[in-house]
């Protein structure tokens, strides 16, 4: 399946925002799902051979959707060079999704590029009568992107930076810990260590938490068994495919030490 690039624009120096025309993905109703995309428009390109997984960030029309990417390596650098009008191979929508509360106060916790799935999630939650507080952490002000959009889609935006250049100074977990009693549920996406810390806060407070995890993927559809996550079940630890049974998991069930290896 091919999708045409409607627009591809830099966001600051480290990020890009791309809108693609693809009715199959744009018809998605749930928040938290992802898709796989080739990083070059050349149909015969074999390097890199694998597609890259990205969260569906926002759905703009019945035909188009957008995603936000952080430039971290060769694939995402190539993605930033793709031009409007070109076609990229896509597979999706993929994976499971956040189970959204209705008429409740909820928190979204995003670390760095973990903001990507939160835009659609915040919109859907508000559509269901939720009060949405978005905690958004980064190293410094330049990591906190799309602030104007975010202000509009949640009830309260709480920026947190490690160097204090924007919002609260420190780690995103500090304000969450302070205010955890306000929320019926937390939805989190970000680095594994941050997710583990947010999960600890939730388990102490008895608050439900869903986390969106990031594993290296080859197929994205459940065939290669390359993306497994250790999940604790009554019968013991079982390995689940991040691309099919995830990327969203109940935080309480994740084997966090195994995930935060290395």
């Amino acid at each position: 399946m091919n999708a045409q690039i409607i627009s591809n624009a830099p966001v600051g120096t480290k990020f890009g925002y791309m809108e693609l025309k693809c009715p199959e993905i744009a018809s998605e109703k749930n928040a938290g799902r992802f898709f796989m995309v080739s990083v070059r428009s050349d149909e015969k390109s074999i390097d890199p051979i694998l597609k890259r997984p990205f969260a569906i960030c926002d759905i703009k029309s019945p035909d188009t959707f957008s995603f936000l990417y952080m430039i971290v390596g060769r694939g995402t650098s190539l993605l930033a060079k793709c031009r409007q009008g070109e076609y990229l191979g896509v597979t999706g929508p993929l994976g499971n999704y956040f189970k959204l509360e209705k008429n409740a106060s909820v928190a979204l916790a995003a670390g760095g590029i973990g903001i990507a799935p939160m835009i659609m999630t915040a919109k859907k939650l508000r559509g269901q009568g939720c009060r949405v507080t978005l905690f958004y952490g980064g190293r410094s002000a330049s990591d906190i992107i799309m602030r104007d959009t975010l202000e509009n889609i949640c009830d309260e935006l709480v920026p947190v930076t490690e160097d204090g250049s924007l919002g609260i100074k420190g780690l995103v977990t500090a304000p969450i810990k302070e205010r955890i009693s306000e929320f019926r549920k937390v939805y989190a996406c970000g680095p594994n260590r941050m997710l583990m810390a947010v999960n600890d806060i939730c388990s102490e407070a008895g608050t439900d938490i869903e986390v969106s995890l990031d594993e290296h993927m080859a197929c994205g559809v459940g065939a290669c068994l390359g993306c497994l996550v250790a999940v604790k079940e009554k019968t013991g630890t079982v390995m689940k495919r991040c691309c099919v049974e995830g990327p969203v998991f109940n935080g309480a069930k994740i084997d966090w030490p195994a995930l935060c290896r290395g």
Partner: protein
Amino acid sequence: MSERLKINLCGVEFNNPVIAASGTFGYGLEFSRFTDLNKIGGISVKGISLKETYGNKMPRIAETASGMLNAIGLQNIGAEKFISEKLPFLKKYDTRIIVNFWGKTIEEYTETAAILDKADIDMLEMNISCPNVKEGGIAFSSCPEMTEEIVKAVRKVVVHKPLIVKLSPNITDIRLFAAACEKCGADAVSVINTLLGMAIDVETMKPKIANITGGLSGPAIKPVAVRMVHEVKKTVRIPIIGMGGIAFWEDAAEFFLAGASAVQVGTANFRDPDSCVKISEGLDAYLERKTINNISELTGKAVLY
């Protein structure tokens, strides 16, 4: 479906000679939302063993130049569960079902093969690139004598279905192994499995996969695979299923010219779930252009100097 692409492989009729390779296509159903399984000649399912197997530690995959390394560890749901839970779904499609299987001892191989021989499937494909735990973990594919022993033992219990043996490229002379398979009654050989490789992340200074080494696949290995198909073709008369790095119809055509009677497509399915279908269509157009009536006429037709 074009008559030009129909083949008979060891008595089994295929609508086209393009097969999805084991381990890259799950149990078939995973890709059914993204490609038309009826247009794929056959599906070789993820390697099945006697008992459910959980596989290796994470990370299990790493991308490399025009290819990837994997050390999945042959995770699968086991023979009985495959037959009861996955096979009924696959049977709904007009595609041939090849069951790839493996074991850690000769007994595990023969028990698994005996179960599969009675199942409603088309062919068995034996992966011999596995360590023999009774021989100190030396792979069944590492010397022709061990290959002979395992093929002989499995041939005895596989009486209803064609038996394909999948050869490892991690040896010095693949011809000896192909000859051993033919001698011990194999109906066909699959050439090749992945090449042993390794990659290190220079920032963390750690190997990119937890198993340290893994199997290299994808376009990076294609010239090695084509060479091995050519060598095997000159050695045995049983049909060869060629694979290793096929991404486009031109790659597949190369394997036929080198001596393959059918091809498998693995890693390319990750790049594009429609790869198998597009390769069939491309081959068909190529045959028409070259006024060749059937793909089987292409086998081994490389014009040598």
